[in-house]
């Protein structure tokens, strides 16, 4: 059944538009405004045109080099955690009990890391991974592995990746669990009659059903890891050196640390445009899979 056309529906969305516009459009205009100006303090601003953008997008300059390095690290981080969290999440979802009292308990435990304030996630891992007082760090060092996340490049990356896996794999697992639960028992019975192997049941029955929820999961995980700030900030502070400085951390350093408003604003705009473009790709894929489902395609 097609939805009726009614432009009066705009009245219903008006409050949402008002509140989000207040929060999004005014600040964004401030950012645009800063990005084309330079300041020498005292609230004196000078027109700088696209100067900051030119500097930002040219990797040979100081600012550009810094931006591209942070961007590279952030993309690498996002891809690594997706490569671990998606398969692990699916695996955990497949292992979850289907009924009985264990279901509720498992769900609550799985959702637990998601409800931990992000700075506390950092604190937990800081305490857990420290080589002097943390269980993980202490154990690794006593096994003869040189592990210290404040000093070593690999230790720092290992820590923030394991931390993110700890924090967010549950999201993928819960999404997949919801997807798996919507598969009718008859599908599995049919597969059993056909003598399908466990692998082909997964490939031809479960995976197609997970398609949609995985898309949402990958979207949320990619976006949130691409703008990650708090957790690595608390644990490593972006170090050692700059080795775990993600785009958001660098941005806050420039904006609130050095108060270089023009540079930070230009960086914000480019950062936002990248996110907007990625979002659009996901949204298009998602809505097209929506409409194909409504038309009765598999």
């Amino acid at each position, binding site marked *: 059944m097609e939805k009726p*056309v*009614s*432009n*009066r529906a*705009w009245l*219903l*969305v008006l*409050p*949402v*538009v008002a*509140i989000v516009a207040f*929060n999004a459009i*005014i*600040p964004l205009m401030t*950012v645009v405004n800063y990005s084309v100006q330079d300041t020498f303090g005292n609230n004196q601003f000078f027109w700088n045109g696209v100067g900051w953008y030119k500097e930002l997008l040219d990797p040979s300059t100081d600012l550009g080099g810094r931006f591209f390095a942070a961007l590279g690290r952030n993309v690498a981080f996002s891809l690594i955690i997706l490569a671990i969290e998606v398969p*692990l999440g699916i*695996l*955990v979802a*497949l292992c979850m009990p289907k009924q009985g009292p264990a279901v*509720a308990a*498992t*769900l*609550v435990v*799985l*959702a*637990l890391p998601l*409800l931990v*304030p*992000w700075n*506390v996630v950092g*604190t*937990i891992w800081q*305490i857990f991974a420290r080589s*002097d*007082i943390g*269980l*993980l760090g202490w154990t690794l060092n006593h096994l003869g592995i040189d592990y210290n996340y404040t000093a070593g490049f690999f230790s720092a990356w290992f820590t923030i990746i394991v931390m993110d896996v700890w924090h967010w794999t549950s999201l993928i697992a*819960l*999404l997949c*669990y*919801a997807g798996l*639960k919507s598969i009718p028992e008859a599908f599995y019975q049919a597969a059993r009659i056909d003598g399908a192997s466990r692998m082909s049941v997964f490939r031809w029955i479960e995976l197609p059903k997970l398609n*949609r929820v995985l898309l*949402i999961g990958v979207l949320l995980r990619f*976006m949130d890891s*691409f*703008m990650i*700030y*708090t957790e690595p900030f608390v644990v490593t502070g972006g170090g050692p050196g700059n080795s775990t400085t993600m*785009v*958001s951390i660098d*941005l806050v350093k420039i*904006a*609130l640390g050095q108060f270089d408003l023009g540079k930070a604003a230009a960086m*914000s705009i480019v*950062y*936002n445009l990248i*996110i907007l473009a990625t*979002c659009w790709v996901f949204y298009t894929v998602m*809505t097209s899979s929506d409409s194909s489902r409504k038309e009765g395609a598999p």
Partner: protein
Amino acid sequence: MTRRLILIAYIVFLLLPIYWLVNMSFKTNTEITTTMSIVPIAPTLKNYAEIFTNPTWYGGFRFSLTYVVLNTLISIGVALPAAYAFSRYHFLGDKHLFFWLLTNRMAPPAVFALPFFNLYSAVGLFNTSWAVALAHCIFNVPLAVWILEGFMSGVPREIDETAYIDGYSFPRFFIRIFLPLIASGVGVAAFFCFMFSWVELLFARTLTNNQSISSIMTRTVSAAGIDWGLLSAAGVLTLVPGVLVIWFVRNYIAKGFALGRV
């Protein structure tokens, strides 16, 4: 059997760091820095006593809970009619509007931190719980619309039409008939608003003068080093509201994460 082992291994991985935090919170700082033990050797409640008797600490918890609750109420309040519009009607620019909302859920808080500081100082809300509550709307309102739209689309439109034929006005229909039908969706959306507002740090820190619990936690770092025991105890207490709300929505969590679209 393998399945159960994998699940248990994963749960141990989830709980071990949390256990370590709880363990630390019952130790004194001397014990933390000098000995390595799986359970506290001389358990103490000193760290918790400090939090419950110091107004800065419990005030921080109260402040944070205030803006979280305010934000949840505002988000759900404005998202309900909007989600209904998206799920029931086509209107000029609806797809673009929906996409624009979605992009705000994805916008990096780091981009908005400084302009929000300017904006909320300009309107005189800086350092109030309203500032943080309104600022968190930028990601929670789109999310609430998204989740509620999914749940509402699961309710057949015939119900609306029958109600209108029976002479119900829109507000009466919405409150008396429609809301009870999507009650679980409202619960899930409220849960998510609560969750994302509770876990956020950057806005809460930028828009207040060290009032939210997350910024007060940074005070445990001083020239004398970090007060690990106190930091752990505060960390443990921040887990409590989360555990409570999870328990209420445990049966709907999975569907909620799929934004009602399973």
